[in-house]
C-alpha cells in the first residue's frame, strides 16, 4: 500500500517550535510534523487501552504496551468483549503488547497472564534492548490526582452482566512490584521482584510499582525506575536479576521516579516527575546535573518520560509532559528547554496524557498517551537540530 498523506496536507499542522529565548549560541532544535495516518488501523476491531509505554527496537519496529481491558469502559467501549456481547463486532481490547513495523503495520502481538510469571495489574514502561529482549515494568494503575474521568458507567467488571457492564469482578490481583523480561516473540525470560511483595529504597530483591526500564547491553545491566512506590533507581544484572546498586536522587531526594533512560555516553537520565526535574547521573549514581522543565506545573508534574535525538551525539533530549500535553525539547548538555510541540486534544498532533516517548534511527518521535488518550502517534523529523 502506498503512503497516503500529501506533504501539503501534513504541513497544515506543521508543529512550529517556539524557541524560548533568542538563539545566539543555542543550537536550533529539530522540527517535526505529525503523521496523522500512522499507525495503520488495527485489525479485528481491536482497541488500545491506556498506552503506558513506547519503545523502538534495533529494527526500527515500534513496541507499545497498553492497559487493555482494565482501562476500558465495559458498557460503552468494548461491547464485543463483554458477556453477553452488547455489540456485534466492535470493539475488543487489543493484546497488551503490540509491535508495529516502520510503516505502521501491526506485525506482532502478545502479552497477558502466563504460567511462570506475574503479568502486571497494569503495565508501565516498555524497553527493547540491543539483544532483542523486551522488558516491561509492572507499574500499577495510574496514580494521578483528578485523572478519573466523569463518564458514567466505567465498567471494570463491577455491574451486572445482563446489561453488558462487564464480567463479574475477579479477586484483586497482588500489587505490582516487579519487572518482566521476554523474548521479542513473547517467551518469558526473567522476573525481578514479586507481585504483592513491594520493597523499599534499601531492598535488594524487591521493587515497588516500578515505572520504567533501561538496559545497558554492554555491561549486561538493567536500570529500573523504582518508581511510583519507591523513590530510587535500582540496577540489576540483566541475565540473573541479581541486585548490583541503587541511588535515591543525589542532592534532592527523588519524588516520583517516572523513568530512567541511558544515553550512548553512559549518562543515566531520570524522570523525577513530581519535581518537574530531569536529573543526569553517571552509571554509579553520582549526580552530574539536573534541569527543571515547566517549573510551574503542579499536579502530576511535567517529566513523564525521556528519549534522545538520533544524531550520534544525542544533542537533544525529549521530555513527554502528560500534564501540560506537550513534548519539550531540551539541550542534553545543559538540560535547558529550547522548544516544545503538541497541545491538548484528541486530534492528530494533540495529546491527552502523553506519558511515553521514543525515537527511531531516523530521528522520528513516537508518543504514547495513557488515561483516555489511548493512542500511539508518530512525529516525522522535518529539520534536524544543529
Amino acid at each position, binding site marked *: 500500500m502506498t503512503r497516503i498523506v500529501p506533504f501539503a496536507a501534513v504541513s497544515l499542522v506543521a508543529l512550529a517550535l517556539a524557541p524560548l529565548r533568542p538563539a545566539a549560541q543555542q543550537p536550533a532544535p529539530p522540527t517535526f510534523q505529525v503523521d*496523522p495516518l500512522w499507525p495503520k488501523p488495527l485489525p479485528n476491531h481491536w482497541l488500545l487501552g491506556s498506552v503506558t509505554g513506547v519503545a523502538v527496537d534495533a529494527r526500527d519496529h515500534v513496541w507499545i504496551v497498553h492497559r487493555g481491558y482494565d482501562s476500558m469502559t465495559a458498557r460503552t467501549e468494548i461491547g464485543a468483549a463483554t458477556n453477553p456481547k452488547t455489540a*456485534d463486532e466492535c470493539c475488543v481490547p487489543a493484546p497488551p503488547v503490540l509491535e508495529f513495523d516502520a510503516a505502521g503495520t501491526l506485525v506482532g502481538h502478545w502479552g497477558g497472564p502466563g504460567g511462570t510469571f506475574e503479568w502486571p495489574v497494569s503495565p508501565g514502561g516498555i524497553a527493547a534492548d540491543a539483544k532483542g529482549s523486551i522488558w516491561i515494568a509492572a507499574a500499577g494503575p495510574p496514580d494521578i490526582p483528578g485523572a478519573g*474521568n466523569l463518564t458514567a458507567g466505567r465498567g471494570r467488571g463491577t455491574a451486572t452482566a445482563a446489561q453488558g457492564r462487564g464480567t463479574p469482578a475477579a479477586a484483586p490481583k497482588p500489587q505490582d512490584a516487579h519487572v518482566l523480561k521476554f523474548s521479542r516473540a513473547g517467551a518469558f525470560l526473567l522476573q525481578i521482584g514479586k507481585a504483592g511483595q513491594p520493597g523499599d529504597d534499601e531492598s535488594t530483591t524487591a521493587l515497588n510499582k516500578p515505572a520504567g526500564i533501561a538496559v545497558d547491553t554492554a555491561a549486561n545491566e538493567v536500570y529500573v525506575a523504582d518508581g511510583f512506590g519507591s523513590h530510587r533507581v535500582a540496577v540489576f544484572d540483566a541475565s540473573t536479576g541479581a541486585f548490583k546498586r541503587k541511588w535515591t536522587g543525589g542532592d534532592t531526594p527523588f519524588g516520583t521516579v517516572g523513568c530512567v533512560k541511558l544515553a550512548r555516553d553512559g549518562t543515566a537520565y531520570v524522570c523525577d516527575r513530581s519535581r518537574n526535574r530531569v536529573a543526569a547521573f553517571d552509571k554509579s549514581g553520582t549526580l552530574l546535573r539536573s534541569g527543571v522543565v515547566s517549573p510551574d506545573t503542579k499536579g502530576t508534574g511535567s517529566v513523564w518520560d525521556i528519549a534522545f535525538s538520533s544524531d550520534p551525539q544525542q544533542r537533544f533530549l525529549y521530555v513527554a509532559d502528560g500534564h501540560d500535553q*506537550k513534548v519539550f525539547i531540551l539541550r542534553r548538555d545543559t538540560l535547558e528547554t529550547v522548544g516544545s510541540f503538541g497541545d491538548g486534544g484528541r486530534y492528530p498532533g494533540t495529546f491527552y496524557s502523553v506519558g511515553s516517548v521514543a525515537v527511531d534511527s531516523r530521528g522520528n518521535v513516537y508518543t504514547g498517551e495513557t488515561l483516555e488518550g489511548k493512542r500511539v502517534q508518530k512525529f516525522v523529523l522535518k529539520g534536524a537540530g544543529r
Partner: protein
Amino acid sequence: MTVVPRGFHLQARSRALISVAFLAALAGLAITERTLARVVQSKGTVMAPRFEVDPLWPKPLPNHWVLGQVIGLSVDAQDHVWIVHRDNLLGPNEAAASQNPPTASCCAKAPPVLEFDPAGTVVGHWGGPADGYDWPASNHGITVDDKGNVWIGANEGNDAHVLKFTKAGKFLMQIGKPGQNKGSNDTDNFGRPAKIFVDSKANEAYVADGYGNKRVVVIDADTGKFKRYWGAYGNKPDDTSFGNYDPKVPPIKQFRSPVHCAELSNDGLVYVCDRPNDRIQVFTPDGTFVKEKFVATNTLGDGSVWDIAFSKDPQQKFLFLADGKNEKIYVMDRASLEILTSFGDGGRQPGQFFAVHSLALDSKGNLYTTETYEGRRLQKFVYKGIAPVTKMDQGTVWPGK
C-alpha cells in the same frame, strides 16, 4: 468457497479473494437473502455515497481549548458547523489550566457552543449559564434552523426544557422548566429532550423527547406551544417501564428512552431514532405510523440507532445512520431502508469512533460526526461522489485507500 486453480493469474485471484471476503462480510452482517440477491444480481453495482476522512479537520482549537463529550452537531445554511459539548465533564487532570489555581499550561475548557467555518476554523463560541434562562445541567443536541436560530436540548435528570438562541448566542425562548416534567403526556415540559428538528415551512419544531419521556413532540417554533405528540407506532405514549431491550422477545409497542432523534424529510416523513430498541420508526408529520426498520438487533445497552441525516440531493435518496455502539455509519437507501454499506470502526485515530453520537451533512454532501463519552471529537468525512459498493463494511475510510 472458491477454489483457486493453479496458474490463476494474480488479478483474477485477488478479485476472487475479494469476493469471498465480501460474501463473508455480508454473512457477518446477517444481511437478508433478499438484499444479498439484490447486491449480487446487478454485478455488485449497488451505488452509494463514498467518503474519506479528512484527518486534519477541524484546525487545532485556540487557547489550549479541549472538548468534553461532543453531544450535538448541526450544519447551517452557510455550511458552518456547530457543535455543543459538555465542558462540565472535563476533569481537573484534563482541564488543568481551568483549575484555580491552574496546575498546568494546558488545557482549558472550550465554551459549550462552537461554530466552525468550512475550513475548520473556530469562528464563534458562546454558551453556559446566564440570567434569564436555565442552561441545561447537561446540554444535548444542537440544531441551527433555516432562519438561523440555534436550538439546544437538555438531558440531565431534572432537565425538562429546550432553549432557542440567535446564532450570536442571544437568548430567545425557553420551553419547559427544569424539574417540572410530568411524563410523556405533559404539554408544557419535556423529559430530558435529546434533539430538535425545525420545519421552517410549517414553522414547527420536532422534539425527540427524550431520555425521560418516550415520545415525539411537535411545537410551534415561534411560541413554543405544544401542538401534538405521539409514541411508538403512533400510540399514546406510556411511561410504563418495559425493562431492558431483549432481541429475543417481541418488540415493545412504546419507544424506549432515549428517543434520540426525529428528522423530517423533504417529502414529509418523520424518521425517529428509537435508540435502545435498535429501530427507526417512520411517521407522517401528524404522527401516523408508516413503517419501521430494525438495525443491528443484537445491540444491547445504548442501542444502535443514534442519529439520522439525509443525503443532500433533492430526493434525499440516502439516509445516514450513526451507531455509537457498533462504531459505524450505515448508508441506507431511504426508500427501502436497506443498508447499502457502512464505514467506520472503533478507535481514536482519524476516521474511527468512540461512541459516534451525532451526524450532519453540509451542502456539498460532506458528512460530519461527533463523539461522546471519551471520543470527544468532531470529524469530517469528505464526500467522494456516488460509487459502486465494493465492501459492505468498509472499516476505517482513509484518504487514498
